């Protein structure tokens, strides 16, 4: 007999959820944290917490400082200007021969901030959101995003009583019922968010996911050239090769003043210099854009040697839509209410994925135990490691950041990589732990999370002196906010641990599960 639509959608929802749920959780969790990338960076890089008062800055002086560091081989410089959430400039330099720098500059004192020796959120947690730190990882992320869209649609179709259950949450019932209530609630109330955030995430990488489209538009060009040509025509991206003739920099401050006339007087988000010491070098200026959703950069490009205008801001209609969607996704604008709402909605997504797994487990426990199937144990370990394990790993990353002294290294492993190794060790360890101790893993990992969260707050106090009383009374919101969220995490983890302990004690009484061996 042909299965009904609901049956086939259930099959799709179950299998896509179980197979890709743990990757989806990683993407949602890291995406949720990325809403506060700058704040986590301030917490993990204490030297950048208090920077220069924002004001008039000489771009020429900043560029000279960068070239001094990069040396005569400097090929590319990118400078993100200070703004309230990041009070220092971030300067990235690439030189011929492969040398790279990624440093922070106090622009009013024109002095380098000591190397923070951490990848923090901007170089570790955030890139994990879209690449999983795997080679070509964005393909896997794209696959997960497509699966997410399918999960959302199939979930709506298989939901038995979407309207009647809209406001239903029964925490006192069996865990299977409670987790299904929570799964439905967190997905249905935030459905527009889940859908748009997933779709816009895919749209950001359209040029990577659909390379053949560009090739079809410009059939005579290679894929790489076609992509450059597409962005050149649609949003005024400008490139040109170095000439080999030495050159020098004309006044960047004068170029910036001209660029600003295109931006209704709005200030600068970033500028980049390509081949600044070559006669064919060019300087690109990007608009701050704090007051609109769209991530249109309104780029203005000048010849860096002469100050001649090479490219005005330009945005074709199709790319204007893409820029709006990616702006909506990346939240580069200044809107604190929306920032917190995104954070909460992101957590709804995390709850949706985790409770989906728990429902799967709870509804199959009895049957799998009776039939002697191994599925429960595998999926329970997978769930535990990818939910509580990932949260623990993230917190261990923060704790390691406060515990490892500056200049630390083991062998050839710098402090920056040591923090990342701690992250992966704890994460892999949590899977091993979950598979080895199926009965106690949840509670133990939740307690470990609480310990790490409280520990991180104490360590921040001990190593930087920025305790909560200080950061709240003389407001320093980035650090106070991260500390407060850590405390919330700790309290929630303890409460969740109690609830899980009660529920598994209930299962033991009903003889479904052997008692955990007590040492």
């Amino acid at each position, binding site marked *: 007999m042909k299965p009904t639509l609901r049956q086939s959608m259930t099959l799709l929802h179950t299998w896509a959820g179980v197979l890709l749920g743990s990757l989806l959780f990683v993407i949602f969790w890291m995406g949720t944290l990325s809403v506060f990338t700058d704040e986590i960076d301030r917490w993990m890089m204490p030297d950048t917490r208090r920077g220069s008062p924002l004001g008039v800055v000489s771009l020429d002086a900043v560029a000279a400082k960068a070239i001094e560091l990069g040396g005569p081989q400097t090929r590319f410089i990118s400078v993100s200007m200070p703004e309230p959430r990041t009070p220092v400039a971030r300067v990235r330099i690439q030189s011929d021969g492969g040398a790279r720098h990624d440093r922070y500059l106090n622009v009013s004192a024109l002095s380098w901030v000591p190397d923070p020796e951490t990848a923090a959120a901007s170089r570790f947690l955030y890139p994990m959101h879209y690449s999983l730190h795997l080679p070509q990882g964005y393909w896997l992320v794209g696959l997960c995003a497509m699966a997410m869209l399918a999960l959302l649609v199939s979930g709506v179709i298989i939901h038995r009583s979407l309207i009647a259950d809209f406001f239903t949450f*029964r925490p006192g019932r069996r865990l299977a019922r409670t987790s299904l209530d929570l799964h439905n*609630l967190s997905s249905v*109330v935030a459905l*527009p*968010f889940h859908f748009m955030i997933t779709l816009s995430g895919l749209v950001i990488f359209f040029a990577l996911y659909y390379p053949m489209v560009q090739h079809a538009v410009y059939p005579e060009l290679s894929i790489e050239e076609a992509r450059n040509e597409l962005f050149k025509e649609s949003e005024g991206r400008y490139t040109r090769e170095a000439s080999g003739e030495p050159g020098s920099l004309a006044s960047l401050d004068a170029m910036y003043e001209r660029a600003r006339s295109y931006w209704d007087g709005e200030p600068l988000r970033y500028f980049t210099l390509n081949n600044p010491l070559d006669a064919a070098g060019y300087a690109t200026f990007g608009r701050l854009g704090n007051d609109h959703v769209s991530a249109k950069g309104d780029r203005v490009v000048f010849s860096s040697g002469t100050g001649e205008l090479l490219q005005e801001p330009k945005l074709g209609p199709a790319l204007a839509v893409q820029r709006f969607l990616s702006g909506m996704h990346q939240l580069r604008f200044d*809107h604190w209410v929306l920032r917190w709402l*995104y954070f909460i909605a992101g957590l709804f997504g995390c709850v949706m994925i985790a409770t989906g797994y728990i429902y799967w487990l709870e509804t199959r426990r009895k049957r799998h135990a009776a039939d002697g199937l191994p599925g429960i144990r595998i999926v329970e370990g997978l769930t535990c490691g990818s939910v509580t394990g990932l949260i623990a790993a993230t917190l261990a990353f923060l704790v390691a950041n406060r515990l490892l002294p500056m200049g630390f290294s083991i062998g050839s492993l710098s402090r920056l990589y040591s923090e990342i190794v701690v992250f992966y060790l704890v994460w892999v360890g949590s899977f091993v732990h979950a598979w080895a101790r199926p009965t106690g893993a949840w509670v133990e990992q939740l307690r470990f999370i609480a310990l790490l969260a409280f520990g991180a707050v104490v360590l921040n106090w001990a190593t930087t002196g920025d305790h909560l009383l200080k950061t709240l009374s003389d407001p320093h919101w980035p650090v106070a906010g991260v500390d407060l969220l850590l405390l919330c995490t700790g309290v929630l983890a303890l409460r969740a641990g109690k609830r899980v302990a009660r529920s598994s004690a209930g299962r033991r009484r009903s003889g479904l599960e052997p008692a955990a061996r007590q040492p």
Partner: protein
Amino acid sequence: MEITTLQLLGAFALSYVGFAWLALTQLRPWRAVGLGRRRPTRTRLVRVLGVVSLSLGLALTLARDGLAFGLLVWPLLLAIAATAVAITLTWRPQWLRGLARFLPDATE
């Protein structure tokens, strides 16, 4: 308090009240608030009130944030308001009695 904060709180309150009314026209939430077992039959007016309240929330959000930002803020505000109503119905359903009395043939 700044006007923008008031607008935001107002939009949230309107969304909460709107969802509470929509919820109360359903059987289970109605029983939870403890105003009798039989659900009022003439519920259309209350549903209209609920939708009007949600729409006023949208208007306030648009006035506060403009079209582009407002259309991002509103659905997220709705998500939190709906969750808040669900949590109220779970733990403090009696709080919604005042709103329940708006149902046309609600009896004590």
